[in-house]
C-alpha cells in the first residue's frame, strides 16, 4: 500500500484520543488505498483525483465502522442525541421534570446543616458580588424542550436555574426571568457569565454541587467575593458556597 508523506514523522507520538485515532487513522488508510487506485502520483491526486475518490460515502463508512464496533459518542448538543440516540451515550436527567436527577460533582464541598437549617451542597465561582445572598427554588434547564415550556408557560417565580451549559443561547429567551443561576461549567468569563452580569442576575459559574434536586430551596452566597481573572490565570480557588435549605414541614 502507498506510504503517505506523514507516515515518516520523527517527532510524532500518536494520534491523540481514541476517537481521533480511530477516525484519522481510518482516513489515512482511505487515502493510501485511493492513492494506489489512482496510480500513485501524489501531485495528481491531492487536489485532483482525490476530490472524486475521497467521497462523503467513503467517509461515512469510516463512521459506520466505529459505531459497529460498539463505540458510542459523548454528546454536547441535545439535538445530536435526539436525532441519533443509537450513536450517543445516554445523558441522564435531560427529560422534562426529572425529579430524581441531581448534578453529583465529586469535588462538591458538603457540610451538615447549620443552626438555621442550611446544608452546604457545593461551591462555585461568583460572577458579581452583590449586597445579599439570593434564595430561590432549584430548577434544572438542560434541553430546548424545557426552555420552550417555560417560554410558553412562563418561568415559575423565584427560579434558581441549574444549567450545565455555559453558553448564552440555550436559555436566551428566558434568562432574564431567572432569580439566580448555578452553572455547572465554564468560568465567570463564559457567555452565560457575561450575560448574567449584564442582566444583573446573581450567578455562580463552574459550580460543583451535589444532592440538589428539582424544587429544593437553595441559597447562593453571592454576597461573597467574585472570582478575578488573575485567580483563574494563577489557578487560585476563589469560590462561594451553595446551600440547600431544610424542607419546611
Amino acid at each position: 500500500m502507498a506510504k503517505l508523506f506523514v507516515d515518516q514523522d520523527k517527532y510524532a507520538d500518536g494520534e491523540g484520543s481514541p476517537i481521533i485515532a480511530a477516525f484519522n487513522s481510518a482516513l489515512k488508510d482511505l487515502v493510501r488505498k485511493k492513492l494506489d487506485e489512482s496510480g500513485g502520483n501524489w501531485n495528481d491526486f491531492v487536489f485532483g483525483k482525490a476530490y472524486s475518490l475521497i467521497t462523503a460515502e467513503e467517509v461515512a463508512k469510516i463512521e459506520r465502522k466505529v459505531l459497529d464496533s460498539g463505540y458510542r459518542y459523548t454528546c454536547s448538543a441535545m439535538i445530536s442525541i435526539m436525532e441519533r440516540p443509537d450513536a450517543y451515550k445516554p445523558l441522564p436527567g435531560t427529560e422534562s421534570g426529572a425529579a430524581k436527577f441531581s448534578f453529583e460533582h465529586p469535588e462538591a464541598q458538603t457540610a451538615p446543616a447549620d443552626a438555621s437549617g442550611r446544608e452546604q451542597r457545593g461551591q462555585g465561582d461568583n460572577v458579581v458580588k452583590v449586597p445579599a445572598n439570593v434564595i430561590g427554588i432549584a430548577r434544572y434547564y438542560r434541553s430546548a424542550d424545557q426552555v420552550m415550556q417555560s417560554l410558553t408557560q412562563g418561568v415559575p417565580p423565584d427560579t434558581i436555574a441549574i444549567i450545565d451549559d455555559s453558553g448564552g443561547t440555550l436559555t436566551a429567551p428566558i434568562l432574564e426571568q431567572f432569580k439566580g443561576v448555578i452553572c455547572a461549567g465554564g468560568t465567570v468569563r463564559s457567555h452565560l457569565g457575561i450575560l448574567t452580569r449584564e442582566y444583573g442576575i446573581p450567578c455562580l459559574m463552574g459550580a460543583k454541587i451535589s444532592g440538589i434536586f428539582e424544587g429544593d430551596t437553595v441559597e447562593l452566597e453571592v454576597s461573597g467575593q467574585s472570582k478575578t481573572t488573575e485567580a483563574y490565570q494563577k489557578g487560585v480557588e476563589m469560590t462561594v458556597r451553595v446551600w440547600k435549605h431544610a424542607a419546611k414541614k
Partner: protein
Amino acid sequence: MTKLTYAQLLETNNIIQVLGEETYFLCVTRTVQESKLFPVSSYMLLSYLNAFYRYPTLLRKIEKHMPAEMIADRVRNMCSKIQSIGMGWCMIGFYLLGREMLINMGMIRPQDAAEDVAYVMNFWKRYQLAWHRNDGHITNKEAGHRSQILPERRIQVFHADMYACKDGDALHTAADKFLATVSQYAFLVACESRISMSNHGPYNLGDGREMLVRDFFDLAEGDLPWLDGVASEVPFNRLTVTTAVKDTHFYLVDDWGSFDSRPEYKGENMCGVGLYTSDELSETHTPVGMGSREELTETFDRYADIFKDATTKLWKRIAGYSRNQMLDAGALTYYAIIKDLAHVAGCYEVDDWMKFDERAERFRGLLNDEYGNELLGALVVPLTLPSHQCNEYTMMQHSNAPKRVHSPISYSILAGEDYVPSVGDGIRPGVTYLPPKADRYRTTQGVMTLAEFNQRCKNFTPQLCTEKFRHLDETWVKFHYKTPLADEMYKIEQQTSRKLAGKGAGLSRADVAALADKF
C-alpha cells in the same frame, strides 16, 4: 519550479508561527465554549475546512475588484465584521486550522497549497497593516494587546457627542439594558460564538476615563439566512456603542476583540455613552437617536425591546432546526466571518459565502459531538496531534512544550522538493441544509436587493477614502492641522456631530472635553 521566493516563504512562515503562538495564548486564557443547543466544536471544524478550500479563490476574486489594503482603509471608518476578531485572528486562524486538520488526516502535506498559503497570509498582512495604520502594528497582540484604530478626527466626534450618564439614571439604565439585550441577541445570531460583536480601544479621554468602542454586526436581515423574517423589525444591521468608563484601565484588548481591565469592569463605572450606525454605503459613523439625552434613552429602551422580541423569534426558529441546519448556521457564521471583504469590494455572492464546498462537505459525516470536541481541543490546546510535535529541545512560547500550533512550509521546496501550489482555481459546487436566502439586505441606505447593494458599493467611495484624503494620516495632520485641507477633512467627519460640526482640525482633547457633556 516554485514561484515562491525565499523571502516570501520566510514571511509566510513567520505569520504562521506568530499566529499559532497567539492562538495558544487566546485559547488558554479564554474559556472553552460548549453548548447544549448548538454542536459548536463540530461546526467550527466544518468552517475551517470550508475556509481552507475556498478562501484563496474568494480572496483573489475580491482583489480583482479592490486590493486588501484599500478595503482596510475603508473599513477603518465604519463598523464592520472585518476588524479585530474577523481579520485579526479568525481569517488566517480558520484557514490554517483547516490546513492542519487535513495534514493530520493524511489528506495533504504541509507544502501542498503552498502558493495559496503564501497568498492568504500576504493578503492578511497587507489588510492588517492598513487597518492598524494609526497604531503602526499588524495585530493587537503586537501592539501590546491594544487596538487603537481610529484617527483623532473620529475619536473627537465620539468624545464630544457622548451623553454623560451615571449608575441609576435613566440613560445609564437604558444603556445597560440595551447592551445586555443586544449582546444576548448577538450570541444567538452567531450561534453561541462571540463573532457578532467586537471591541476596540482603549482611547484616553483624560481625567481617568477611557473610551471603549463596542461594535455589533449582522443584526438585521442581511447575509445570514436564519435572520430572514425574524429580524425584519431590527432597524440597523450594524451598531456602534461608544462607552466612556471611569476609574477602569482596559489593559488588554485582544485579537478576538475581547477586553480585560483593572479593576474589573463594572457597568456602574460607565459614565458616557453614544450610539451610531455605519456600513459600506455611509460616509462615516451616523448618530442614532443622539438628538437629545431623552431621545437616546428612549432609543436604547425601544431597541432593547426589538432585540428581545427578535431573540425569542430567532430562538424558536433555531430550536426547530435539525442538527445539520444548526451545523450549517454555525459553520457559515464562522467561515463567512470575512464576507464583508466582498461587500466592500461590491462582489458578494450568496453561493460564495453561504454554502459548503463539496470538498469540505464530504467530511460532515465525521463531525459528531465527541470528535468535534476532541479534535478542536487537540488542534489548539494541548496540541496532541502528530503535526504539532517538534524536536525535544523546543520550548514553545507560553508552554515550554516541544510543540507548535501550525506546520510551517518547508524551505526544501526552493531546492526542488515537489509540492502542489494550490487547491485549484475556482470554487466547487456548494450545499446547505438551510432555506434559500431571501433577497433582502438592510443597509444604512434602506432595504435593497443584493444586486443593488453590490452595485451601490461599487459606485460609492466615501469622501474620506478618496485619493484626496486617503493618505492624509495622523502624521500629516500633526504638521498640517492649520491648513484648509485639514479643516476640510475634519469637517467631513464632523458633519453629523452635535457638538463639533464645522469646528475643523484645530481642537485639542481639552477643547473637545470643554465642549462635551461633563462626565
